[in-house]
């Protein structure tokens, strides 16, 4: 039997949940890449590489950090802004980092404005509109993140990552677990460390994102 791997799509309409295909969540101190458990350090390195390779590396902060419902949330928001600023400093000409919020989970119809927000029920609209080829979810409740990650995998070629405050996301292509301010800052450090060592994939990224 071929082992299922969580890879950039478009996989097909309604892709299976990665868990149902045998993908396990990492233990504390670990992450996963494409569904393979790795030491957390490896996940930092790969996440930073993916950001630096992408044409439109994007952070999607969710309600758990956008709303200052406690002190920790506000601190995470500050760390996310720092990570975004670091991305902007470290990318090369032609790369456009973005920071797009997911303020809540209501299925917004008749329309959302994909330029200014992402909605978990049709995240592909924001990915397509902005030609996002690499993204990271931070502060999105788990079930909404998994739903969203599955839709993105089903319909787009975007490389998805999750900085999850709980046990991680098997439906992302790369996932951390137990997210904290320190971990977000550490990822920013890794981006800085790898600055200039990664060749951006500008042409292939464009064709990937337009799928």
């Amino acid at each position, binding site marked *: 039997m071929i082992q299922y791997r969580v890879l950039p799509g478009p996989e097909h309409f309604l892709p299976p949940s990665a868990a149902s295909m045998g993908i396990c969540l990492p233990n504390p101190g670990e992450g996963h890449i494409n569904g393979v458990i790795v030491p957390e350090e490896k996940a930092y390195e790969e996440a930073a590489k993916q950001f630096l390779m992408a044409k439109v590396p994007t952070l999607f902060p969710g309600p758990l950090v956008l*709303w200052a419902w406690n002190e920790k949330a506000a601190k995470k*928001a500050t760390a996310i802004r720092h990570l975004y600023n670091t991305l902007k400093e470290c990318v090369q000409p032609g790369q456009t980092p973005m920071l797009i919020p997911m*303020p809540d989970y*209501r299925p917004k*119809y008749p329309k959302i404005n994909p330029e200014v927000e992402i909605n978990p029920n049709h995240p592909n609209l924001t990915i397509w509109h902005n030609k996002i080829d690499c993204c990271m979810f931070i502060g999105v409740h788990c079930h909404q993140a998994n739903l969203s990650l599955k839709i993105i995998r089903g319909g787009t070629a975007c490389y998805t990552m999750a900085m999850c405050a709980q046990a991680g996301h098997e439906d992302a292509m790369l996932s951390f677990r137990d997210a904290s301010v320190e971990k977000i800052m550490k990822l920013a450090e890794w981006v800085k460390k790898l600055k200039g060592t990664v060749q951006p994939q500008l042409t292939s990224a464009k064709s990937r994102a337009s799928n």
Partner: protein
Amino acid sequence: MSKERIKISEDLYDIMPSDYQDLVKSATYGKEDRGWKDIGNSKELIEQHSLCAGCPESMAFRYILASLPNPEDTVMVGSTGCTSLVFPMVAVHNIHSLFGNQNAIASGLKRALSVRFPGRTKDVVVLAGDGATVDIGLDMTLQAWFRQEKFTTICFDNELYANTGGQESGLMQKGFVAKMAPVGKLFDKVRLPEIARESGCHYVVQCTVSKPSLVEKVIKNAVMIAREIGPTYLQLYTPCILEIGKNSMEGLQEMRDSEKPTERFAYKEYISEPAKQLLAEMAAKAQEKKAAAKQLAAQGA
């Protein structure tokens, strides 16, 4: 209780879509005497809607959302129908229930909230169409009232199943022919206000939504009585202009015509004795407050 709980993280404030920024800046969460007069002066708790242009349900939504006494601690329960298309745009916690199940969901929710937040006032308000309330959900509607569940049930009575193209409902008038009910209704409009009274509702009102001040009054009464005493029921005429062949601008007149004393939506109200007492106490307190404010103003002058 107020907006302290509704703050945007400073470092991400600038990326929040403007509707959320406006909600935090100028919505009337936490305002004690909020009401329909805030419409136009503050951010409404409804962003936009996908109802037909001129649908009176949209007016009803705006007045109700402006009048809820405690929106930040209110959970609304909706059901399938035209109303359910609006809820995604409503900035009050809400749950969409399976068609007809709304009063069962609300019963469990109200009980769970009182266990989870024992010291805090949490209001539950059901808002569903007549098909959901009176036909498919009648069992759940009545059982919640029999059990004296402490929440408000609001029925948007448009006298048919609008969202599915015009089928007959229990609240349809006798003889009415709808697009998908060509034979015409063979029996009378179900007398749900009377049934509500007999089933144990402490406050029952039937009216149209032509007057925002009246909607504000009955919403506030219904929510406060449900909070303190037991179930309350509001049946609001929100005509489906599409199905009765009216234009966008004609919904208001249709309501005015139907609320005349001899018409089927003439104002109707039942109040139980304990509820009357509560309303009297509330009125006395409001009077006291007004007098105190007047005195304070006079002293300052």
